[in-house]
């Protein structure tokens, strides 16, 4: 067969002749190629009629295909096809699909939500993305916070309280933590004594004499720590003063400090410098009521809820 093929495939010329004998070979494109090309032409024309195509003046030909969606205000909108309208449509559809859940959230109590398996699933997934978008920048994606900057939301220690209501209050109004700069009122010696006392409260190795002197400073008007941190040093949740007797540290990076001396030094640093950076923004007005409610339950479920 190959021989037959060879004989039948002598190359034709186009039939023109220049300068007497100059001819041009005619190697036509394969038929399948030509037909494919025609199909693409037809495709392009069909495409123009369906999708936006040619610019005309300041506008363009919109094409036959439309995008219709119902926006959050309940109005039906129709645009000729474009990717922006497509996105808006998708967003509106997603919001509509979530709406029954958010409606349920607003009608249920926190305890009901936390006990309903289906709602719990919704909180875990919706809360996760809300948290990632709004909270994770400071509190980290898992809510573990950063010692020295942002509180850990997964442990069992709460500055302002870990009940549903308290978490909700924190989210709505934000918080501002403050501690005066004690280097302005106390001597370095006194601050060192106080630091040793605070270390003793959590069982960190300390100088006992300094600690007992610090005890006096703490409970008298000289330093007057007890006003905020309470007489038993367990803090006051109404003003966000932390419990100094447990093992949770936010501002002084005690867990990372080397040796007892290092830990005491970390505490000393906080006492002498004071604090004016514990700011959490208010989310009322930025997030919807239902979103804040979802986040409340989500943060509560992060492990530390009380």
């Amino acid at each position, binding site marked *: 067969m190959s021989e037959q093929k060879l004989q039948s495939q002598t190359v034709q010329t186009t039939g023109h002749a220049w300068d007497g004998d100059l001819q041009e070979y005619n190697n036509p494109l394969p038929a399948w190629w030509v037909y494919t090309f025609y199909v693409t032409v037809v495709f392009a024309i069909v495409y123009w009629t369906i999708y936006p195509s040619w610019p005309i003046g300041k506008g363009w030909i919109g094409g036959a295909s439309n995008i219709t969606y119902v926006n959050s205000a309940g109005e039906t909108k129709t645009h000729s096809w474009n990717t922006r309208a497509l996105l808006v449509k998708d967003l509106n559809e997603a919001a509509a699909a979530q709406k029954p859940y958010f409606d349920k959230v607003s009608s249920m109590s926190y305890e009901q939500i936390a006990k309903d398996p289906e709602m719990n699933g919704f909180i875990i997934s919706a809360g996760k993305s809300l948290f990632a978008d709004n909270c994770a920048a400071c509190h980290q994606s898992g809510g573990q916070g950063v010692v020295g900057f942002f509180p850990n939301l997964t442990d069992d220690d709460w500055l302002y309280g870990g009940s549903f209501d308290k978490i909700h209050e924190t989210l709505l109004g934000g918080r501002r933590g403050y501690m005066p700069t004690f280097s302005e009122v106390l001597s370095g010696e006194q601050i060192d004594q106080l630091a040793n006392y605070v270390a003793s409260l959590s069982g960190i190795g300390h100088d006992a004499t300094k600690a007992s002197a610090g005890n006096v400073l703490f409970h008298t008007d000289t330093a007057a720590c007890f006003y905020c941190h309470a007489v038993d040093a367990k803090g006051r949740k109404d003003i966000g003063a932390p419990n100094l007797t447990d*093992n949770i540290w936010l501002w002084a990076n005690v867990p990372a400090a080397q040796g007892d001396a290092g830990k005491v030094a970390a505490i000393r640093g906080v006492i002498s410098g004071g604090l004016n950076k514990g700011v959490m923004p208010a989310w009322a007005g930025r997030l919807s009521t239902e979103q804040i409610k979802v986040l409340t339950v989500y943060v509560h479920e992060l492990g530390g809820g009380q």
Partner: protein
Amino acid sequence: MQTGLEDQLGLYQKRIPIFTRSVKGRFRRFKTSVLVLAYAMYFLLPWIPWARLDAPAQALLFDLPGRQFLIFGLTVYPQNIIWLAFLLIIAAILLFFVTGLVGRAFCGYFCFQTVWTDFFIWIEKSIQGERPTRVRLFRQPWDREKIIKVGSTHALWLLVSFWTGLSFVAYFTYAPQLVLDFFSGRAADAAYITTGLLTLTTYVAAGLMREQVCTYICPYGRFQSVMYEPQTLAVHYDAKRGENVHGRAAVRAGRGIVTERRHDRAEGGISAERRLINLTTGARALAERHEKGLGDCIDCGLCVQVCPAGIDIREGLQYRCISCGLCIDACNTIMDSFGFPRGLIRYDSESNLAAATRTPPRLHWLGLKTLGYGAALILMSGLLAYSISSQDSFDRAVSQIRQPLYVVLSNNDIRNRYQVRITNKAAQEQTYFISATDIPADALDLGGFSEISIKPGHSGLVQVSVHLPPALASKTERFNLVITPKGKPAEARSESVHFDSPNRRP
């Protein structure tokens, strides 16, 4: 410099149309029964009803939006994807196994391309007539007759293609509803697109391209060739017998016998005496031929005319041969009618054909490769059967929350948290309990969920937190979470999970 074969031939070769002649015989009968069976299965399966509690009453339904495959009494969830892997492995091994034994049996008898092409050729024959008539019609100018005949052939092909496409879609949605929706324009876009696409591809592949798919496109045909052994049975022309010393030659005498036999057959088989006479005449004719050094092939060309691949098997085993056996049937018919022994074209092995003394063709089971594939086949089928029969009534996935890996609590206890996802695979709603072993009972905190009840086919998520005092935490590397369906303690399953603590980071 040598030019490549492509340069000499040109990359593009125009298709030479093939008009196959129909034939009767063992292989044709086998192919027809496979076709009937395959079509009955493919077209009817989606219509078999099967009562279910909370899913459409369709025996075979691949419910993609619901993320479940309903196969009679079995519900397959995405978690069972391993079964699909098993099935594909089994199919692959089966292909290798069979190909090593009897060549491209899949191609010739079971492949969709072969089955659909076969049916399309049958339609073509029914409308346009037997091969000579079709050839004449092909050469004839486009007159009324040609337009009607060719047009109705293509119309029928399109109809079959369309029903093929629609039937495929019917596997994915409730079939009666689909057909109603489809023709009233209310079906999903995907249904129209899929049906359209499959209509087109079926029509093009089985109607227009046919053997070109096997020759140029299909990879299976090519890689099956490398699985042939010298002992593999394949369709072969016995050249030694067919060509003898002086080659093939037509038979001029003996036409009478053919008519006679046809006549006998019409009356219900050939009589004993007749066969004897036929055989003796045949043997005599054959003896004469052999004396002259002629082969048994009478060069009638029937084997070429029936071949759907358009090849001449007498040129030897070829990559285009899909091993359909029709040339065997054709040649046997001819041999019968002349009273020559059957099997000039037959299933035989290369090694046997080359051997000095022939033995009757037989399957070679005992090769190492065949036994190995056989063992793998049994093993994988057993694994699949075991996996399906022993599946749990629920699925569980425990993932440790890794941000943070652990939390140090105010009293120095260490807490780890886990997300437990339970998927109910049973047919009814079920309540599950979660407990733990290897850790104190009070270390486990399930939040609001002492139990969780899950609808069939749904999943539920439970957050589990575990806290241990530091001393115990540093000793505990793993513990078990136990999930127990309510009232079925025997179906309880435990998952070993990791516990992280600061003293022992991973």
